């Protein structure tokens, strides 16, 4: 059990706990930001200015009764939230969140702040994102209720439609960075042009960034693309029949997917952990700040924009976003060929 192996185990545990707590933090942030946007107070009773609200929510969900519809398929009904939550956690396994560090010389060699160092990491993120579909469609099917089924099928159709644009926007960044490993793509964005414009990929691939953000929001079923699970439309869609901890797992999966999409966007487009004033080893602070900004943007969009109707959503994904991402890829390829990389 070398110190490096122990450090990696501790890192894995740390990432797991951090994702769980980020989900709890997001619950609070969402409600507080929504309240401030709507000019009301939000949670303020539980703890100082409502900071303990997530704990109250989790306790409430823990004490609720775990229901299952009588005609529901028991095995699939039980598995579906597990698949959702597992895929959400697993996608973060290949996302690096800081430069390699030796923890002030305690370790013999630098440890990458990434749970699994795979050299096709970008594709792994995409692969696990496409596993999210199963949790949703199985939840919709196994609940044996028409609202759940419709919500599940619509939601999964939406996710697989926007996956295409997601992947093609990724391809643009891969062309520029010339590597499939996320760490390489981040390190490609170090430094600055003219001394003050950071070399982030968002300046080279602005349309790709927009497509990636929009497809990411659609992938995580967040507003304005949350028609399949909106309360006003489909009685909460695919998770209508779930209660207590199973429902909590779907919620957890949604927030962790948001965090993962934000983290991947930061790594691929916004320079990852590189930033002006801090040294490399404290780069994770920049990473946190950028991811936090993107998460705030997510919440802001949800409580500002009206939601797309389902046919508008699908036609936008297929008729606007997909051709745009193909054109983006072609232009990027032409640019790489002409200007050289």
């Amino acid at each position, binding site marked *: 059990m070398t110190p490096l192996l122990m450090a990696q185990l501790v890192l894995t545990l740390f990432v797991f706990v951090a994702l769980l707590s980020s989900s709890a933090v997001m619950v609070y942030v969402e409600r507080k930001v929504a309240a401030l946007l709507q000019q009301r107070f939000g949670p303020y009773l539980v703890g100082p200015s409502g900071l303990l609200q997530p704990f109250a929510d989790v306790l409430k969900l823990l004490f609720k009764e775990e229901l299952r519809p009588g005609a529901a*398929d028991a*095995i*699939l009904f039980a598995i579906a939230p597990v698949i959702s939550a597992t895929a959400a956690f697993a996608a973060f396994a290949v996302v690096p969140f800081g430069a390699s560090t030796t923890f002030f010389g305690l370790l013999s060699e630098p440890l990458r702040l990434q749970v699994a160092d*795979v*050299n*096709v990491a970008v*594709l*792994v993120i*995409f*692969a*696990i994102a*496409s*596993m999210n*579909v*199963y949790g949703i*469609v*199985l939840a919709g*099917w196994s609940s044996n209720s028409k609202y759940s*089924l419709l919500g599940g*099928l619509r939601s*999964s159709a939406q996710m*697989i439609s926007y996956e295409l644009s997601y992947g093609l926007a990724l391809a643009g960044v891969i062309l520029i960075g010339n590597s*499939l490993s996320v760490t390489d793509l981040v390190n490609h964005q170090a430094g600055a042009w003219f001394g003050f414009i950071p070399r982030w990929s968002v300046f080279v691939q602005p349309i790709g960034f927009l497509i990636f953000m929009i497809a990411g929001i659609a992938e995580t079923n967040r507003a304005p693309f949350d028609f399949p699970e909106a309360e006003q439309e489909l009685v909460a869609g695919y998770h209508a029949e779930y209660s207590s901890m199973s429902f909590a797992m779907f919620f957890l999966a949604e927030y962790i997917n948001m965090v993962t999409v934000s983290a991947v966007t930061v790594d691929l487009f916004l320079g990852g952990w590189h930033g002006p004033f801090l040294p490399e080893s404290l780069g994770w602070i920049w990473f946190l700040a950028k991811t936090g900004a993107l998460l705030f943007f997510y919440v802001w969009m949800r409580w500002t924009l009206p939601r797309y109707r389902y046919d508008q959503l699908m036609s936008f994904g297929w008729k606007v976003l997909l051709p745009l991402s193909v054109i983006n890829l072609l232009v990027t390829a032409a640019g790489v060929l002409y200007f050289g990389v």
Partner: protein
Amino acid sequence: MGSDALFYVFGAIAIAASLLVIAQRNPIYSVLLLITSFGALSGLYVLLDAPFVAVIQIIVYAGAIMVLFLFVVMLLNAPHEETPYDERVHPLLREGPTRFGGALALALVAELVWALTRRSGSGAFAGASASSVSAIGRSLFTDYGLAFEVTSVLILVAMVGAVVLARRDPVSRDRTAAGGDR
């Protein structure tokens, strides 16, 4: 040492899941078990130093083709097979042609194993693996460029064909009270 154990683990999962796929009565369980089998195969590809193929297997097979299967099974909603055989006996244990077919499948295994292992050479793996993703890409677009373009035409044909084949016939204008569209 660890990768040896992983080979046996992934191999056992792949075989067990595939056996369960053909043994399930409910097609949804079959689809989910096949996804498990694909996951195990993806692990085997990683052990064979082919990470790109492993990830493509998950993205294409487990993430797209199986979703297609799942949607069709849910659309058709016909979970049980009706046969002239006795319904209480499991489909794979029925008498007559089924048992003979099972015996033939075992014979097929024996034949394939015999045919595939009759090679000269030790059978151990070569030292270093050749391929990186950029090498695969380069070879794909130069040596196999024609096959690549033909494959893209094939996918277009399959898309158009699937849409045409699965489309409902347009309903005639004067619909009587008794009939739906079929």
